[in-house]
């Protein structure tokens, strides 16, 4: 206590330098309230740096403009397009063909009628086209072999070239009605179908006679209904042209200055624009206009800096009522041009004002900085009901269809729609159709984020609008002629089913699946079930019987496509419900079974898939039976040329072999030989996805028939000429070795395996982890048996370590790291020593990646040999490592600090103390590494070093480091000090720390306090011997003016009190609590948190009764601010120690009340 007073009152350092007698006079007299700054940020006080307030304010003001997405500009400059329309596949482009739907007032009957008309029209068109094409093909048939048919090439867009029929994979069902699967996994490759090309337009060009028959207008209407009114092929070029128009000064409008210079000044008058004039705001029309002749400039001219043209381009970023935007695209003009027309809003009516307000909010959300966006988004949501659904959606929906919409913008728009929908609730109903039209394409997108976003919004929409509205809206699309629309609808419906519950939609789905009217409806119904199973997953189980019932009848449908869809739906259901629910599939097993015999090609693939997923659900006995039966078909289909069929077959083999009840001998005899003959070929290895399927199936087979048989077939491929096949074999071997080991590999096969692996490792072209993993897995799996090959392996590795190519060297070093343990097991210490010496010599490596690997290899060698036997001796090794610690590369740093730490931990005595001090200095640099692992390793290395050479020197280094500016560095230093204290016992460190606190420097004092906090955290109950020693320090800190002092002291008290709870140290803790308590009114978040934690810990030490006495003072204080804090403390205590409080609740003696608790007064 006395010491503390001395600290505050008497000690004054260098008063002539600091020019202050009073320690506290330079502090701010007021505390910044609601500061969200960092915990230990430097307050503008004595030792912090400062600047005139005006500059600081200016910087603060400039901040939001800086925070715009910097990557966007970068991406633009690199030509990475985030525009959705640019990255769409042919299939996805079909979304542009959809009509947005009729007016909101259209009745259901009218909608249905319109849909029917559209369908009939489309059917007619497709019929005519088919006839047309057949005629064309007949006439060209002779030339099919040697050249591509000319008329196919003649598509005017040029973007969609039809594939030659002979080089594409044969498909059976073909044409018109296929959907590319988006979700990868089990999907087939997307196919182009006739709908994907732009045949409509091309048709006009080639066969005018036929198309003339029914005129242009009906056709046009379907494809051109989008508000953008441009073909997609053109829109891209259009966008580019528009950009060019803006960029090229020759195409820009002439400014007034230029006109003045050009035209004679007399004889002309400048006319006012007529009041009815409205400037054209549709860029599309501007594009059509013929560019004027070279205006103003002829040929090349040197652009003047800051010419008027550039200034104007910049100015478009300024929108009245919004301010500066990060960007404003040409396309935005179309939607937001209104905001720029400069009309004042005073004389507008309410409707128009509202529209502009919405537009402004949307523009802020779409193009604004994150801060702007946040505010606008909240306002939009808050005012949604006021604006009304129509006003909002009429502005948002066209934005979705903009040609230059980017992913980020779409994401934001979707977010707006979501928020608005939440507020509007049932009011969105009139817009369900149009919303679905713009959102559904997201479900078919290749981008999984877009799909997730789309399904979330549709799910919210269905909750807001209700099932009836959703069904009524989607009903006309269910038998739509366009397959794209049906696909999107089925996905959307699946989302509705998952949102509103399967039982709610099941009757409708059942009706759709049984539709007599059109096969398209049945097809969509099957797909709805399939998608539902994919969306809901295991959630289908309770409704499995109903869902299977929906699709079961489809297996015998007259339409091939419906049968396939039905089988696929069953496959999806079985996959989702695995391993349960076989009872529900009982009724379909037989039809599926028959289907396998009856079908060929694509249909067969679907049926096989369904059987393949149903078999694993069965009992072992049944599964074995069905597998035996289905195997011949599978083996026959190994030969199928179709990629989709191959994928299915591989999957089914995997499923069947993995199921119980299948005899290994049968698989070995029947499946393995044809499997390897059909699938382990170079062609499949080239395609990454099919290679993956093959590898997975191979591993599954190995699990069944034993690794030996499979590996025996793979060793040949390890030495194949084709690199791709070698890689594939290596991957399979790796996985088999990892999963099942190589214990069963013996004798000759073992030799072949090691030989093959070594060959593949040495011959690899691109160095990546595949070969390395395989090498490590096989050698590691062999263990002691690897001894005969180690000599050969080592010489290969040593040779590669000396290789010219850095990638090779790096890989060799990585390989050393992996096999070091095996070499030790085999007793090849001498080889290890050789490798160690070699690695030591390569420490001068200049490529950081390679150096990192070499250090990793050295670490592995040191690990297995031990520091005492290490060659070169540790005393030589460490001096080489110290300079490497200064390397800036992360991998080098991490491996190096790891190695140094290990040496410090196990063999510190081999290195002179001077050398350790040198590495201490290098270690300080590592404290501001980005990677946490590096900082942690550095900090604990300080502990090891301190243990080896004593804490004094290390501490001196660390305490000096507390004076640095960088916060992270200081924090790490305090942690290091605490660790040193922990490893070398606190009494060696605390005196130095206490002394250091006397340095009148904010950072140092805070650092000391923080170290004390960490120290007590680490030493736990050992702290009971040091409470009295640090009490004066904490006293002083708790009465300091500086907030951070008090905060750190509170943290230290909280750790200390926790450690000493129950060790009879109540007195000092109570004393500190008395000093801590006045801080309960702090408002800075970190401080109040630390103070409350300190009180909470003190409660553990002192008991709830004591704290209760403190709390009672303020629970009913007249000032609300006081009550708030006290009740929070009370609640904290209540939650932590409620029973302990029972005895301490205040006794009340109001005669009239019934508040007394008389039981407490009982005395026996």
């Amino acid at each position, binding site marked *: 206590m006395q010491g503390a007073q001395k600290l505050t009152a008497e000690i004054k350092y260098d008063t002539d330098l600091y020019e202050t007698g009073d320690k506290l006079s330079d502090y701010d007299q007021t505390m910044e309230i609601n500061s969200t700054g960092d915990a230990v940020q430097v307050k503008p006080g004595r030792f912090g740096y400062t600047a005139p307030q005006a500059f600081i304010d200016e910087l603060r003001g400039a901040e939001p403009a800086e925070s715009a997405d910097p990557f966007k500009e970068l991406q633009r400059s690199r030509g990475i397009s985030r525009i959705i329309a640019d990255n769409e596949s042919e299939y996805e482009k079909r979304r542009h063909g959809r009509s947005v739907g009729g007016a909101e007032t259209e009745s259901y009957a009218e909608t249905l009628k319109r849909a029917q008309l559209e369908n009939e029209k489309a059917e007619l068109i497709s019929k005519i086209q088919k006839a047309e094409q057949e005629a064309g093909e007949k006439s060209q048939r002779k030339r099919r072999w040697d050249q591509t048919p000319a008329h196919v090439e003649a598509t005017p867009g040029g973007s969609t070239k039809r594939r030659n029929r002979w080089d594409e994979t044969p498909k059976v069902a073909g044409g018109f009605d296929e959907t590319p699967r988006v979700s990868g996994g089990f999907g087939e490759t997307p196919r182009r179908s006739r709908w994907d090309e732009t045949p409509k337009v091309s048709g006009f060009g080639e066969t005018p006679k036929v198309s003339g028959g029914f005129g242009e207008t009906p056709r046009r209407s379907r494809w051109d209904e989008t508000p953008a009114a441009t073909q997609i092929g053109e829109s891209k070029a259009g966008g580019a042209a528009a950009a060019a128009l803006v960029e090229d000064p020759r195409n820009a409008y002439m400014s007034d200055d230029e006109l003045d210079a050009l035209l004679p000044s007399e004889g002309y008058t400048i006319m006012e624009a007529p009041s009815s004039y409205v400037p054209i705001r549709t860029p599309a029309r501007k594009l059509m206009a013929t560019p004027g002749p070279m205006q103003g400039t002829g040929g090349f001219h040197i652009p003047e800096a800051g010419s008027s043209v550039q200034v104007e381009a910049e100015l478009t970023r300024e929108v009245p009522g919004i301010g500066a935007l990060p960007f404003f695209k040409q396309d935005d003009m179309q939607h937001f041009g209104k905001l720029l027309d400069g009309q004042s809003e005073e004389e507008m009516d309410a409707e128009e004002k509202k529209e502009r307000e919405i537009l402004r909010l949307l523009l802020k959300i779409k193009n604004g900085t994150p801060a702007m966006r946040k505010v606008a988004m909240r306002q939009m949501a808050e005012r949604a009901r006021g604006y009304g659904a129509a006003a909002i959606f009429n502005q948002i929906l066209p934005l979705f269809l903009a040609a230059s919409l980017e992913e980020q913008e779409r994401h934001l728009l979707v977010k707006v729609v979501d928020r608005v929908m939440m507020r509007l609730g049932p009011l969105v109903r009139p817009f369900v159709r149009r919303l679905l039209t713009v959102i559904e394409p997201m479900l078919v997108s290749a981008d999984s984020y877009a799909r997730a976003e789309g399904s979330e919004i549709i799910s919210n929409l269905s909750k807001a609008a209700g099932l009836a509205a959703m069904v009524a809206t989607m009903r006309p699309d269910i038998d739509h002629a366009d397959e794209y629309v049906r696909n999107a609808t089925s996905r959307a419906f699946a989302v509705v089913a998952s949102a509103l519950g399967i039982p709610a939609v099941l009757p409708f789905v059942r009706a759709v699946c049984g539709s007599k009217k059109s096969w398209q409806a049945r097809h969509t119904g099957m797909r709805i079930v399939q998608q539902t199973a994919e969306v809901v997953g295991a959630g289908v189980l309770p409704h499995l019987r109903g869902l299977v019932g929906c699709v079961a009848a489809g297996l015998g449908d007259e339409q091939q496509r419906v049968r396939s869809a039905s089988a696929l739906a069953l496959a999806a259901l079985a996959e989702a419900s695995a391993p349960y629910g076989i009872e529900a599939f009982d009724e379909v097993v037989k039809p599926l079974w028959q289907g396998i015999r009856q079908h060929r090609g694509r249909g067969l693939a679907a049926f096989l898939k369904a059987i393949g997923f149903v078999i694993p659900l069965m009992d072992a006995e049944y599964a074995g039976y069905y597998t035996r039966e289905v195997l011949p078909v599978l083996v026959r289909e190994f030969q199928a040329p179709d990629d989709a069929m191959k994928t299915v077959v591989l999957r089914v083999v995997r499923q069947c072999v993995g199921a119980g009840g299948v005899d290994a001998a049968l698989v070995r005899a029947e499946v393995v030989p044809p499997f390897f003959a059909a699938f382990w070929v170079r062609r499949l290895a080239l395609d990454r996805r099919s290679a993956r399927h093959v590898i997975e199936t191979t591993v599954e087979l190995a699990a069944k028939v034993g690794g030996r048989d499979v590996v025996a077939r793979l060793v040949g491929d390890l030495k194949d000429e084709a690199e791709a096949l070698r890689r594939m074999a290596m991957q399979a071997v790796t996985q088999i070795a990892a999963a099942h080991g190589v214990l069963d590999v013996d004798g000759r096969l073992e030799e072949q395996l090691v030989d093959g692996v070594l060959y593949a490792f040495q011959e690899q072209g691109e160095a990546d982890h595949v070969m390395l993993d395989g090498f490590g897995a096989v050698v590691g799996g062999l263990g002691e048996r690897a001894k005969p090959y180690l000599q050969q392996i080592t010489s290969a590795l040593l040779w590669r370590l000396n290789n010219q190519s850095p990638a090779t060297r790096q890989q060799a070093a990585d390989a050393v790291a992996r096999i070091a343990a095996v070499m030790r097991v085999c007793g090849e210490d001498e080889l290890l020593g050789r490798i160690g010496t070699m690695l030591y010599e390569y420490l001068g490596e200049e490529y950081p990646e390679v150096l990192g690997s070499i250090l990793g290899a050295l670490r592995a060698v040191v690990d297995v040999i031990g520091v005492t036997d290490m060659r070169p001796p540790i005393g030589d090794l460490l001096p080489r490592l110290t300079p490497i610690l200064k390397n800036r590369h992360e991998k080098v740093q991490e491996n190096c600090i790891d190695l140094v730490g290990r040496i410090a931990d196990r063999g510190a005595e081999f290195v002179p103390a001077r050398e350790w001090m040198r590495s201490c200095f290098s270690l300080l640099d590592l404290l501001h590494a980005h990677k946490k692992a590096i900082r942690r390793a550095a900090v604990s290395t300080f502990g090891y070093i301190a243990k080896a050479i004593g804490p004094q020197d290390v501490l001196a280094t660390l305490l000096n480091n507390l004076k640095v500016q960088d916060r992270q560095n200081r924090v790490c230093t305090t942690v290091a000090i605490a660790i040193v204290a922990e490893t070398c016992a606190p009494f060696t460190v605390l005196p130095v720390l206490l002394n250091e606190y006397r340095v009148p420097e904010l950072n140092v004092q805070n650092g000391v306090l923080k170290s004390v906090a960490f120290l007590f955290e680490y030493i736990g109950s050992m702290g009971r011997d040091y409470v009295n020693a640090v009490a004066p320090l904490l006293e002083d800190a708790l009465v300091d003016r500086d907030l951070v002092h008090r905060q750190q002291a509170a943290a230290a008290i909280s750790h200390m009190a926790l450690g000493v709870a129950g060790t009879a140290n109540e007195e000092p803790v109570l004393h500190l609590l008395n000093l801590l308590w006045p801080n309960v009114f702090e408002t800075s978040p970190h401080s109040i*948190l630390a103070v409350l934690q300190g009180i909470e810990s003190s409660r553990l030490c002192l008991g709830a009764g004591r704290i209760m006495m403190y709390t009672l003072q303020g*629970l*009913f204080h007249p000032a609300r601010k006081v009550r*708030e804090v006290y009740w*929070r403390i009370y609640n904290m205590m*209540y939650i932590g120690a409620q029973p302990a*409080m029972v005895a301490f609740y205040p006794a009340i003696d109001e005669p009239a009340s019934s508040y007394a608790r008389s039981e407490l007064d*009982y005395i026996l």
Partner: protein
Amino acid sequence: MDKFGMNSQTEHWHAKYVGTGNPDISKHEWFVNQHRDTLAYYASDNSLAAFISIAEGESIARTKYNMLQRMQQPCGHAPRSSGTDS
């Protein structure tokens, strides 16, 4: 909102722990909570219940039952006039 602020957890606590208080609690409410806590503690702690039952000359089960019954309305009706008594 405010992550560490004064009221960040208040609502959560109120929902989870019935006995927690708030700055606007009335004296009556607070005492009702105290009594309920106390009675619950008596009833759940066997030795305390035995002590009280000996003092009151009742069986332990009766004592515990009485405690539980009293928990319904430990301090009688809430005072009519709101705002003046807290």
